[in-house]
């Protein structure tokens, strides 16, 4: 808190603030206690905040915290809402509209 309230701001303070912010976003993405939308929004913010570090650095942060899963989940919820489809082949429940992800994945695994 002392760092955040310091009037004599320096580049070091700025870097520390950025680090705290990024850590908080990463914790949010990793957390099971927040909603899908919050995790997705945190992943979006993480991308925006770390874009100045370069694409490689940003992507390694996303890999480390599972940010891509958070984004996928958020898009699913936004697009399909709470509609749940039950697969007639393997009975898996999914929010997907036309193809069961589990059946499709197992078919893919067999073929390739």
């Amino acid at each position: 808190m002392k760092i955040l309230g310091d009037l004599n701001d320096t580049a070091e303070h700025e870097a520390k603030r950025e680090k705290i912010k990024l850590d908080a976003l990463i914790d949010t993405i990793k957390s099971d206690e927040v909603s899908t939308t919050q995790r997705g929004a945190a992943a979006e913010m993480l991308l925006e905040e770390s874009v100045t570090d370069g694409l490689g650095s940003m992507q390694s942060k996303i890999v480390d915290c599972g940010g891509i899963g958070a984004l996928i989940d958020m898009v699913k919820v936004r697009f399909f809402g709470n509609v749940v489809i039950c697969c007639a082949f393997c009975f898996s429940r999914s929010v997907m509209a036309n193809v069961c992800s589990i059946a499709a994945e197992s078919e893919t695994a067999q073929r390739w």
Partner: protein
Amino acid sequence: MVKALWAMRTSVIGNDSLMRELQTQGGLLLLLDIIGHAASLCDDQSVAREAQEAALACALAALMGHPHNCRVMLSLGIDQLIDLAGAEDTPEHNRQLIFDILQLLGPYSYVECSNCGKRQPKGRFCVQCGFETGVELARSP
């Protein structure tokens, strides 16, 4: 939501492990769903077009330089992509993105023998059973 799709596209571009993760978490199927059903899922058609464009751009990024994802996309979405490329109501920019995706999938296409199911990259006869693998064109009624 469109923003999240662009974020996904930025995340995966040129990164093998994120491309793989996108596929294993059902991301390619999700993108195909959005590409095919954006118009019916969004009330605002301009948002639907933007969502379709973002999903196509994300799919393109997830396929570039990733043979496994290309094969998965080929087995799951080739019919849908070809239909969309030929549809009159597909926006021109989105159609161009679909063409780019189809070009990426081209080297991984195959001919499947209708007799034994063997897949091969090309050829008029099946290398396994010798059955003719020519494309069956629609017959007039």
